[in-house]
């Protein structure tokens, strides 16, 4: 190395830094292959049973789902960290997304939000065509976003129930043949 070169020694630094970066990337990609539980997600899951297995709690799903949400099954997503979260999205002529998170701070809501009549621990507001509803259910925060009419929010909140594989739970039936509203 010539002492006159203003950046002498930098090539060695870049070489070492590049090597360390490659090693870190190998860890980033390799660790979840060996220990699948180390990845926080989000994961797409095929069924509520699988979602329950991954999350460690039963997802809350509304029994009331109008036919305009479509006949197909919802897309189900699970995130394990930092707070275990379940997301179900129905898309048809109308859409409905339901997020259920265990623990953590309350989901943000505008100061103009108000309690939904007859529904405990709720905040409701409208933003463009979408109705938003935040609910507290025990240790869970539930957020509903839908372009269904506002009157449907209360029905959704009233019929929210935990998925059960054995019993005639609302979600189990809903996944196979959504009842009309």
């Amino acid at each position: 190395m010539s002492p006159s070169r203003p950046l002498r020694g930098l090539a060695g630094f870049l070489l070492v830094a590049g090597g360390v970066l490659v090693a870190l990337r190998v860890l980033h990609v390799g660790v979840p292959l060996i220990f699948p539980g180390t990845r926080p997600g989000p994961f797409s899951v095929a069924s509520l049973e699988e979602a329950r297995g991954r999350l460690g709690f039963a997802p809350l799903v509304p029994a009331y789902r109008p036919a305009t949400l479509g006949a197909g099954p919802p897309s189900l997503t699970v995130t394990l960290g930092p707070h275990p979260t379940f997301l179900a999205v129905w898309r048809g002529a109308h859409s409905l997304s339901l997020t259920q998170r265990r623990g953590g701070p309350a989901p943000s809501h505008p100061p103009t939000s108000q309690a939904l009549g007859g529904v405990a621990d709720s905040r409701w507001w409208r933003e463009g065509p979408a109705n938003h509803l935040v609910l507290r259910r025990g240790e869970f925060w539930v957020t509903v976003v839908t372009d269904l009419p506002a009157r449907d929010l209360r029905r959704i909140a009233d019929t929210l129930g935990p998925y059960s594989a054995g019993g005639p739970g609302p979600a189990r039936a809903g996944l196979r043949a959504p009842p009309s509203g």
Partner: protein
Amino acid sequence: MIPAAWYAPLPSFLWQVALHSAIAGVVLYGWARRLRLRSGRSKRHLLALLLVLPLLTAAIPGRTSLEFRERRAWLDSGRLLAIPLVAGVRVSHVVLLVGLTMVALTLWQEVLPALRRSGARGDDAPEPLARLARGLPGWERCAVTLRRADALLLATGGWPWRPRVIVSRGALARLSDDELAMALRHEHAHWQQGRWARSHALFAVRLLQCYSPVALWTFREYCLEVEIECDAAAVAGRDARPLTRALLAVYESTDRRDVAARAALRRRADVLLGDDRLDDDALPVATIAAAAATLVAILPWLV
């Protein structure tokens, strides 16, 4: 999974500092080994960089979201922290344990001795020694304290407007006049050319990272480099043997079990004896600046 509290703003920041410090430490250590970097200004710059840089890169906001960690980050350390070990213990538990151990070590080995040193009282030193110390430039108002201890101790404390030299009875008894004079010159060098301010600023930065083993090691290496620099300043244009003899006397009086202290003294003696030389210009400032800029660009992508 690791606890959700890990992703709260403060724990997340503290972990990011430790993570960036560890990764930058590996890169800079590997680079220094490759260059066979000797003691000197370049090495001090790299060590200071390693202490300061992680505090900046870890503070860059917007990187803790799941979206960033899963889709954009080059490394999500959450995956490593969540690796299961035995009986429900994960890597994150080990990291926590190491962090707590480092805090205890910092209190025991650094904070408490510093408090004891600053609060220690002693007798007035013999007049010739006080005259010798106050004859050094800028030390006209220096307080010279004699500690009633048989251990071989010569250290400085106090503040820039009122420096203090602490000498033990053991040092007075076992060091010759020229060895004492050179040891005083070494202590005086700690107060010259901004070394006191830089060392104390970096000590504050290191205390912010009191849970990080990398910061602990880095600051100790930095202190050793400053000692070597002050040795060089003390012997500049003079005979290096009295200071080397003083160092060897301290070495022999140091407990054999204190391997780190003895190794540091040996290295200082090696540099003074010319077995290991100083190289202040091993790396151009532009190279160090480019390396720092590269780390600033890389580290935020590791979360």
